[in-house]
């Protein structure tokens, strides 16, 4: 929310290759204290690679990476005391129970939260004695998030935390994340869900092919690309796009998925002109509506790909 003092994460010109694949190709960004920062990007964009370098799990090829102002490659042990980590793939000892795992991981840290409190935070009370291998996918995901919170970390890395959760569990995780932010925690997360990024992230960076394409708050990103709003209705042969492009306020007209979309600077003028035209022709535009551009539009525009492909 507020960015004050020294950033908790500082990344400058970070590069990481796997053979010929440039997984991360010269990215720079900062995350302020108390900020929720989202990394968005299609599969293979380099999000996980970036996060795991910050967690001290992979070596960067070049560039500087600091957490709490300390170089990650040189101060990993003391940084690890203060961060919480949830990996993209759930990774738990299969035959230990929820309680045993939280106790065990707690013992790795100088300070840790009571297991009961963590179990309640992710709503796993009923499964506290279940072995992790017998949990459902969503329950494992929640346990993995509880494990990320075991040391009451100042900075939390969440790599696709809500993938595999049902809508209700996703909502309750959103509340959990907002609660963490309310307590001054900083969070770096990745997600493939637009609503989620819009709901939780103070700022997002959109990545593709190892580059950051765009960075800022969600309204900023939308405003930067789409000054217009869209007027849309079911395409009709009696209303050719070429003609519609000349209506008041319209900057661009297109047919997308069986709908005619008019991007307009002046929505009231455009609709007035459109209705005048349909009156004249004595037809009814079906499913007429107006919408704001979304992060999804920004994303499509930037990467040419849907967020989940």
């Amino acid at each position: 929310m507020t960015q004050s003092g020294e950033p908790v994460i500082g990344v400058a010109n970070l590069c990481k290759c796997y053979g010929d694949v440039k997984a991360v190709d010269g990215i720079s960004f900062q995350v302020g204290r108390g900020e929720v920062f989202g990394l968005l990007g299609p599969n293979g964009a380099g999000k996980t690679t970036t996060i795991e370098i910050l967690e001290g799990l992979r070596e960067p090829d070049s560039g500087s990476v600091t957490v709490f102002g300390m170089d990650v490659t040189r101060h990993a042990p003391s940084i690890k005391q203060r961060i919480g980590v949830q990996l993209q793939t759930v990774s738990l000892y299969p035959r230990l129970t929820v309680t045993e795992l939280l106790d065990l991981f707690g013992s790795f840290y100088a300070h840790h939260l009571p297991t009961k409190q963590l179990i309640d935070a992710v709503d796993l009370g009923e499964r506290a004695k279940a072995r992790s291998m017998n949990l459902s996918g969503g329950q494992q995901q929640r346990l993995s998030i509880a494990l990320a919170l075991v040391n009451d970390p100042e900075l939390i890395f969440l790599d696709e935390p809500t993938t595999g959760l049902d809508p209700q569990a996703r909502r309750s995780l959103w509340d959990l994340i907002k609660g963490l932010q309310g307590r001054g925690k900083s969070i770096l997360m990745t997600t493939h869900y637009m609503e989620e990024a819009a709901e939780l992230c103070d700022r997002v960076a959109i990545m593709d092919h190892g580059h950051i394409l765009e960075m800022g708050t969600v309204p900023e990103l939308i405003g930067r690309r789409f000054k217009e709003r869209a007027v849309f209705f079911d395409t009709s042969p009696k209303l050719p796009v070429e003609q519609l492009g000349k209506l008041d306020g319209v900057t661009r007209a297109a047919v997308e998925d069986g709908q005619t979309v008019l991007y307009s600077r002046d929505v009231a003028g455009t609709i007035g002109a459109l209705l005048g035209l349909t009156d004249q022709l004595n037809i009814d535009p079906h499913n007429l509506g107006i919408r704001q551009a979304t992060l999804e539009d920004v994303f499509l525009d930037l990467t040419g790909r849907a967020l989940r492909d």
Partner: protein
Amino acid sequence: MNTLMRLTVANIRSLVRDRAALFWTFFFPVMFVFLFGWIFGGSGDGKVAIGFVDQDNTPVSMGLQQAFSQVTLLTIQTGSLEAEKAAMQHGDISAIVVVPSGTGVAVAAKSATSIQLYIDPSSSQVSQVVEQIADQIASGFNLQLAGGSAVVGIQQMTLQSTNISTVAYLVPSILAMALMQLGVFAAIPLVQQREKGILKRIGATPLARWKLVGSNVLMRLMVAIVDAVVILGIGLIFFNVQIVGNLLAAAGLVLLGAGAFLAIGFALASFLKTEEQATGVVQVVQMPMMFLSGIFFSFDFLPGFLQTVARFMPLTYLADALRQVMVNGTQVAPLGVDVAILTGWLVVCLGIAARSFRWE
């Protein structure tokens, strides 16, 4: 409770809750001890078999034979001295009582005479039992026939039984096999944990890596001790295989052996990527050792070519060392050489693992 202990407990829990792992580490060797014990054991009743050689053939000698056969702890077989000596050397019997000709005449004349008792001083527990029994029988005889004066004495003879019984051979060998499997099979959960990303996840915590490794080693060494106690216990209780050597030396060897094979397991885990690979390769490594290292039959029965192969296998030396220390087995190599070879494997494989082990 500190981190190392917690991790060790976590490892023990994971093992105990894994049926397949439990089978290989405990039930498989136990099954083998029973199986081969029953096949080769003959008298599984805890009795001591002795040979009785009657060169006298008088009522006195027959009385003595009857006295010995009435002792419930003993089973008696009779035959010529040559035959009985051969049987003792082969490990079929533990002692021989010889009544020389002229004993009956001497007793009748109340002049001092003696019977001979062949024992193997290296299997001291059995020898002591037989000695005591023979003493009691002799003094009972003296009391009855000569009013207490020492007419029949006992002349102790020693006979090294160079060949131990099949069961006595098998018990330490199967223990060696169990330790080998315990160590080599350690590769599987390690690879599993790496494949699942558990090692990586732990790498994101401040836990020192040596503790992760240490807890694994600690857990396996504890299991090694339990395996040893269980296998030797079954050998003793069901098949009367006595541990004659120094227990401390035996325990040391158990730990050294477990350590060496654990190092081999870690080295294997360094090169294996998937769980399926690990399960396959581990079997390829352990099967030939199990059959060629002189576990189920003596090394000498192998054709020359396979003996050479077996001489490269660390299990050959662990089994040899355990047999030497525990049951006075004949040696494949001197004990010092066994220990040196096992230590060599430990150091080299640990070095390989330390250099090549990947956490991810």
